[in-house]
Each structure stands twice: as structure tokens, then as C-alpha cells.
């Protein structure tokens, strides 16, 4: 925006916003580990990384949502102390989150002026003038009087962006702005962002899509596991380089894995369609088969249908069409407890929201879902003796570090949380294990432990469907690799027959022909 451009006194190209050794720790995880990033004035700077790499946490620190535990943020060379987003906006930093902060029943104008009015009365005429000017200037067709709740998601994003610019910010942070857009919408957004950059606005764009980085950015900083891998000029790299930086070539550890022959299919997913419940990542005719005694790794960037696939297999949601068979039985419409009784273990991606009762004790979580099994209850009354015995045995054999079995689960570290889930899920000698991001957020030891257990289960004869964004993990554990993109499996191969880069390209939505041209 013009306002933003004119207010900038310093010349383009010099550092405007700098994060110095920024560290942010959440209970059990280091989200940002001594992160250094330099944002230059009037550039489009991408923060690239896998899910959980710490991109959004970093942005939230720059926007004052979080305060760093260590390190500092400098704006135009001066230390910046932000206690809230309001402070950030006053300092000229605005952010548009993935989840919009709009008031749906109110009009576009009203949404834009919320929070901007220092005076007692609303001056909507001025807002309307600027809004109409802005929309006309950038060829965006939105009626300023329209009710925001009735606009498309893409249009709502424009309202969010303009709302932020209306505050007169010089730095605009966008968190995965293309997730909600159509390809045409993305093109339009990029065109306008480029023009805003040319007019002096500094733009920080969070993404995990390689193509967007290449299309749009001037420079890119890659984050992995909370650390900065490096900052590069986009012109100096190609998608392959970025993919390598993003997933990391250095192998954490070598899994000890013997060759294995797949047996009878334990999971047959045939052409299923399932609408996403979040607006992202629906299934569009996905098929995949897992045999007993094999690990099928599903590689993919988050939001391409992994959640929906997990939900469909464990029975939390049912596909609109297609079929799912587990151990030969049709479970397309089966309820989760019925599927569990077929010998299906599930390790959800979000262990806190989907896998555990954080306010329950450790032992209660160890029997969660099996509380009606004869082992743990008779006639509806819990058998405490058996539960205690089982908990003690699990804590011992899965090396769960907890002061006692009665400890409230919330107090445990991420690795131990996952061990509780593993102990619970593997207790019944499952035929099929569905694991989604089983090592995300875990330290090396816990990661290794979880991987070793999965391989043990495979050797015992279980089929494992492993969904992961960690390509090292996929390569180390899988007997077959499938790549999920846009709700479909777009490639199936074996680890020996492919490369990290090839899989990465498939994950980024590039077809084989694209690769050939590079």
C-alpha cells in the first residue's frame, strides 16, 4: 500500500526486522531454538519448513503473540519488546493468520475499522473511500457493504489483508495464505503481493510449498525442527535444493530392519472420497493397500488428506463413496470401537487432542478405549487391580518415565505421552497399525524407540500404515512408499527404487514431466 511505502525512511534492501537467537520453549518441545532471521526492507521473504518446524511460532513472536524465552527481536536496529499483537501493529507489523479473525455478520467496512477508531464515533465514510480506492487500485472486486460471512474464503482473506494494511503496517506476515485459495486465486494474490512489495511493503510469507517459494519470494529462510537451516536468495536455488534443506539430508539414525515379504492384505482402501471437515485435505478417490508384515509409508505435505485417511480407516468419519476392508471385513461404515476390535491400533497425529486425556492419570490413559475389555472391567465396574497391574507392566516395558501410574498425564513430556499411546495401542497385538506422524515433536531417543517398536510389530506380522512428513522416517521404515497429494495417492514405489528428491517433488505436487525439465 501507498501508506506503507511512503512512511519507510530507510532504503530498500537493508535489514528492517531481525530475530536474534530467538528461543521459544513449549512444555516438552523447543519450538524455536536460537533462531536468527534477517528480514530486509521491501522484500518478500519466505519462511519455509515442514509442519512443526517452528515457522508459525517464529511469526507469532514477531507479531507479539508470544514472547521469546531467550533472544530478541530488532526493528530497524532497535530492540523491540512486544507484549501483544497490539504492540506489534503500533510498531508497524501486521499478520494474517491461517484462521481469520473476522466478524462474520458484520460488513467489510465494519470489519476493517474494528480496532482502528481512536475517536468516539465511527467514521465509515473515510474507511469506505480508502477501501474502494484500494480495491479499485488492485482490481479486487468486493462490495464494501457485503456481509463478511457471505464472502468466499478468498475474499475474506482480502478483507483480512486490507484490515491489516489499514493500520498502516510496514511489515505484513502471511501464514499459509494460499491454503484456502484456488490456483487462480493464488495467482492473483501473488500478483498483488509483488506489486505491494514494489511499492515498499515488506512481506513475510509462511509456507511449506516449494513452488510458491520459487514463484514469489526474493529470499527464503528454511527452518527444520525449530532451527534455521539457512537463508538463501531464491534466484540461487531450485526446488530440489529447497526440498533437501527442508527435509534434511543428515540421517538421524539408521533403523535396523530386515527385509520383509508382505502377506495377505490387512487394509484395502478402494477409491474413497471424503470431504474434509476443516476445508483442507479431502480425499478424492484414494486407494491404498497394506499387507501383513509390511510398512507402507505415506509421504506427503500436511493437508493433502492424511487426516481424512486416518479418520476413515479408524472409523471416526465415513467416506461418501468407495470402500474400506480391514482383515477382509468391510468396515466402510463401521464405528471406531468395532474397528478396534478387529485388531486395529491407531496412533493419531495429534496425540494431545486425539490420543490422550491430558487430565486423566497415566494408568487411565493406558486403558482408554479398552475399559470395557474383560481384562479391565466386569459388569461395568472397573477392575482396579488389573488396571494397576497392566499399567505397572506397560510403564516398565515401554520405559515410560513417570513418578507413578497415578500421575496426571499433562505433566509428562512429549516422548512419554507417545509411549503411553504406543503401550496402549500395541498391547492387543494388533493386525493393523495406523500411525500418523508418530515421531513428530519427539527427541532422538523417543523417536528411535517408536520406530524400533513399529519395525518389531511389522516383524511380528502386523501391517503398518505410516503417514509422515518426515521423509527420513519414510525411507528408513517403509517397505513401500506411497505419496499422497491432493487427496490421492500419486505415486507408489519402493525405497530402493527412488530418491529423497523424487519423493519430495511428488509431495510438492510436481508431476514427473516437471522433474524431467529441471
Amino acid at each position, binding site marked *: 500500500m501507498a501508506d506503507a511505502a511512503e512512511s519507510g525512511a530507510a532504503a530498500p534492501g537493508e535489514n528492517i526486522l531481525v530475530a536474534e537467537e530467538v528461543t521459544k520453549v*513449549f*512444555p*516438552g*518441545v*523447543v*519450538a524455536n*531454538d536460537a533462531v536468527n532471521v534477517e528480514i530486509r526492507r521491501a522484500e518478500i521473504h519466505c519462511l519455509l519448513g515442514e*509442519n*512443526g*518446524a*517452528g515457522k*508459525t*511460532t517464529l511469526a*507469532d513472536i514477531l507479531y507479539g*503473540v508470544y*514472547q*521469546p524465552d*531467550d*533472544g*530478541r527481536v530488532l526493528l530497524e536496529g532497535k*530492540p523491540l*519488546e512486544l*507484549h*501483544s499483537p497490539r504492540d506489534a501493529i503500533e510498531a508497524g507489523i501486521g499478520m494474517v493468520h*491461517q484462521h481469520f479473525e473476522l466478524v462474520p455478520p458484520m460488513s467489510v467496512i465494519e470489519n476493517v475499522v474494528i480496532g482502528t477508531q481512536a475517536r468516539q464515533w465511527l467514521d465509515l465514510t473515510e474507511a469506505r473511500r480508502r477501501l474502494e480506492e484500494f480495491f479499485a487500485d488492485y482490481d479486487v472486486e468486493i462490495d464494501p457493504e457485503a456481509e463478511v460471512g457471505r464472502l468466499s474464503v478468498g475474499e475474506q482473506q482480502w478483507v483480512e489483508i486490507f484490515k491489516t494494511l489499514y493500520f498502516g503496517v510496514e511489515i505484513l506476515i502471511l501464514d*499459509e495464505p494460499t491454503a484456502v485459495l484456488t490456483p487462480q486465486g493464488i495467482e492473483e494474490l501473488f500478483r498483488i503481493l509483488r506489486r505491494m512489495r514494489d511499492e515498499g511493503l515488506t512481506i513475510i510469507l509462511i509456507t511449506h510449498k516449494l513452488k510458491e517459494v520459487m514463484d514469489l519470494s526474493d529470499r527464503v529462510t528454511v527452518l527444520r*525442527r*525449530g532451527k534455521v537451516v539457512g537463508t538463501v536468495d531464491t534466484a540461487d536455488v531450485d526446488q530440489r535444493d529447497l526440498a533437501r534443506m527442508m527435509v534434511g539430508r543428515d540421517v538421524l539414525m539408521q533403523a535396523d530392519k530386515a527385509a520383509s515379504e508382505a502377506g495377505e492384505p490387512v487394509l484395502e482402501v478402494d477409491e474413497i472420497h471424503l470431504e474434509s471437515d476443516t476445508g483442507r485435505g479431502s480425499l478424492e478417490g484414494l486407494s491404498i493397500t497394506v499387507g501383513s508384515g509390511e510398512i507402507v509409508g505415506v509421504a506427503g505435505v*500436511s*493437508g493433502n488428506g*492424511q487426516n481424512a485417511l486416518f479418520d476413515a480407516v*479408524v472409523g*471416526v468419519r465415513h467416506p461418501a463413496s468407495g470402500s474400506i476392508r480391514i482383515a477382509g471385513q468391510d468396515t466402510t461404515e463401521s*464405528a*471406531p*470401537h468395532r474397528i*478396534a476390535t478387529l485388531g486395529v491400533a491407531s496412533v*493419531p497425529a*495429534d496425540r*494431545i*487432542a*486425539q490420543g*490422550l*486425556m*491430558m*487430565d486423566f492419570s497415566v494408568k487411565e490413559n493406558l486403558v*482408554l478405549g479398552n*475399559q470395557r475389555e474383560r481384562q479391565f*472391567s466386569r459388569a*461395568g*465396574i*472397573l477392575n482396579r487391580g488389573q488396571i494397576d497391574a497392566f499399567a505397572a507392566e506397560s510403564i516398565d516395558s515401554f520405559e515410560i518415565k513417570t513418578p507413578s501410574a497415578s500421575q496426571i498425564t*499433562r*505433566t509428562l513430556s*512429549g516422548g512419554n505421552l507417545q509411549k503411553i499411546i504406543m503401550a496402549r495401542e500395541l498391547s492387543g497385538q494388533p493386525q493393523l497399525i495406523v500411525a500418523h*506422524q508418530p515421531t*513428530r*515433536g*519427539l*527427541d532422538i531417543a523417543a523417536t528411535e524407540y517408536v520406530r524400533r517398536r513399529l519395525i518389531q510389530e511389522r516383524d511380528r506380522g502386523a501391517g503398518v500404515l505410516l503417514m509422515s512428513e518426515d521423509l527420513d522416517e519414510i525411507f528408513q521404515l517403509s517397505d513401500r512408499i506411497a505419496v499422497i497429494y491432493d487427496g490421492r495417492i500419486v505415486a507408489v514405489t519402493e525405497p530402493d527404487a527412488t530418491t529423497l528428491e523424487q519423493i519430495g517433488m511428488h509431495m510438492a505436487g510436481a508431476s514427473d514431466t516437471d522433474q524431467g525439465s529441471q
Partner: protein
Amino acid sequence: MSEQVADAPQDSPRPDDHEAGAGRDPLSMLFQPGAWRLERRLHTRPVYELYATLIALAITAVIIGLLVIIVGVSPLDAFASLYEGAFGNRESALETLVQATPLILTGLCAAIAFRAGVWNIGGQGQFIAGAIGTWWVYDTFPGLPAPVLFVAMFCGAAVFGAVWATVASVLLVRYGTNEILTTVMLNFVIDSGLSWLLSGPWQANDTPYSQTERMVESTFLPRFFDDSRLHLGFALALVMAAVIHFLVRRTTLGFELRAIGVNKQAASYKGVSVGAAIIAVMAISGALAGLAGAGELLGLHHRINFEFGGQAVGFTGIIVALVARLHPAGVIVVAIAFAGLLNGATQMQVGTGIPAALVDVIEGVALVLVLLAAVACRYRLRKIAHHG
């Protein structure tokens, strides 16, 4: 530690779609101290919660004391006469237990539903439904021998209360209708229904008033003492508290309803049928309020009239449950304390001229402060290093 990656923080609802950063904490954003920071405790020791509750009640006493001073009465005199009326002698203490009886049951009604994360605000209506059920059994099966009739009447009360609650839970499970709204509105519906019954089908022949006939004496609940109204219903309430405690802590159903109260999503991923659990807990909840209705009818009033339910024990039960932090044993203690307030208020009014309505203020202030204390318990102040 340094190898760990960002994961979603504690409260993030769907971290798969966004990274660490989702669980923004309004309280810590509200307070922006320089060197001190308010942060969430991972776990609060139960004994802290007890202390916090006691501190909250002490502050309540101070606030009420100040109010009393404004009226021009010595707080000590006011509290003394309040205590005298509530527990000062055998007679008033027993009467306090009489008043506590329905509050224990309606308190349990709210507590078990809230435990499951289901906001049953319809205890009052379910209480009325219970009285209606009692009368219906009494009216329909006059020939039953006394012991059977007692059992049948209490069952009738429980079933009617449960059914009335189930109306709301079915709407919730089938159509996602907000149970707070439906339970509140059902309170009005049954009030009107009762009016119709009392002025129509069930109206007593011998009076012009909207009321039922007086029940025959063989249906009166036995009383413990000759000089007190304390009836068997109090024992029933204590037994139900024990039953609910056992149900919540020791049964699979209790396990599942606590699970849906803590985390519905994880519960459904682990095969708990959330809908069935909601239906079950609401039925139990409504049955408890229904039993309270039966106890009041058979133990004290022996007829239903417009006054019935006028004490709004269903609503007070909600406050009882919340102040008791949803623990059955706590419900007994708080119900007796609140009954003492109600009972002592009359004495206080006579003795000091302070309106008995002050009791409502005490209940309200206590509720707000106890809830604040409960929230405060989850945080701690920590000194942080200063940057920049």
C-alpha cells in the same frame, strides 16, 4: 532437548493444520507484566484447589461483612444470628438438613452432567418432572402395598426426571442443539405443564386452589425424629452421593463420561460413543433431580401446588455443584452450608433487620469467587529474565 521440534502446545484443537502457536492464552495476553509473567501450571495439586476455595469463601465473608456494615449492622452480630438460625441448636440444625436434602440431589444432578461436559441447566424442570412422576404413580396405582408404592413412586420420579432431561440430550445428540438453551426452556415448558395439571386433571375437588389433593398419610416418608421434619429423603440423598461417586470413579460408564468431559475428540477416536454417553449422563442427571422432587413431595409437602418448586432448588443445585467443584462429597458439604444460609437468613432478618435476600448475594459472590479461585489455581506467577 535441542533436537526436539515444535509441536502444538497443550490446548491446540487441531495442530495438524497449524503449527505451535495455536493455543493462545487470553489470560496471559491480558496481563502484560514486565518482569513477572503469569503462566499456566501444568498441574495443580488438589490441596491447592481446596486452599483456594477456602480463601475464596473467606473473601466472600469479608465482602458480605462490608455490605452488612453499609446497612448499619455489626457483621459479627449478623453472622452470629445467621449461624444461630442455621446450626445454633438441634432444631435449626436438623431443619438445615431438611433444606439441604433437595440441594444435595440437584447438586449431584448438575455435578455429574458438568463432569461429562454437558451443561444441564434444567435441574429445576427435572425436579418438577420428578414430583409429577411421583404423583402420577400415586394417582394411577392406588392399590399398591406401601413398600412397593414407595419404590414405584421414587422410580416414577427418577424416570420422569430422566425423560425430561432426555428431551434435551436427544436434541443435542441428534441435531446439535445447545443443551443450555433447551434445558432452560424446558424448565418453562414443564412449569406451564404443571399449571395445567393443577388447574385441570389433577386439581383437588375440595378446594378452589390450583393444587392436588393431599396424599394419604401412608405415603409420607418416615421421619427420623419426632421433633423435626428431617425425613428419609436425606438418607437417600447421602446414598445417592455415594452411588454417584462410585459411578464416576469406579465404573466404565463413569470412565467414559469423564472422558467425554475432558476430551470429546480423543474419546471418539478411542471408540467411546459420545452420543450414547451424553444420553446416559443426562438421564442419570435428570433422575437425580427427579428424586429430589419425590423427596420434597413425599417428605414435606404431600401435595403439589403452585408453591412447589418455588425455592428453585434446581438452580441452587447448579451453584452448589460448581462451588463443590463437582465432587459428590463436596456437594453434600456445600448443600448443607447453603441450606444453613437459607435457614439462618430468617433468623438474621428477625434479629438484625437484614433482608433475608442477602443470602442470594452471598451465594452469588461465593460462586463467582470460587470459580475465580479455580481458574487462578491453574496459573502461577513467575519472575522472568528481562530482555532488551
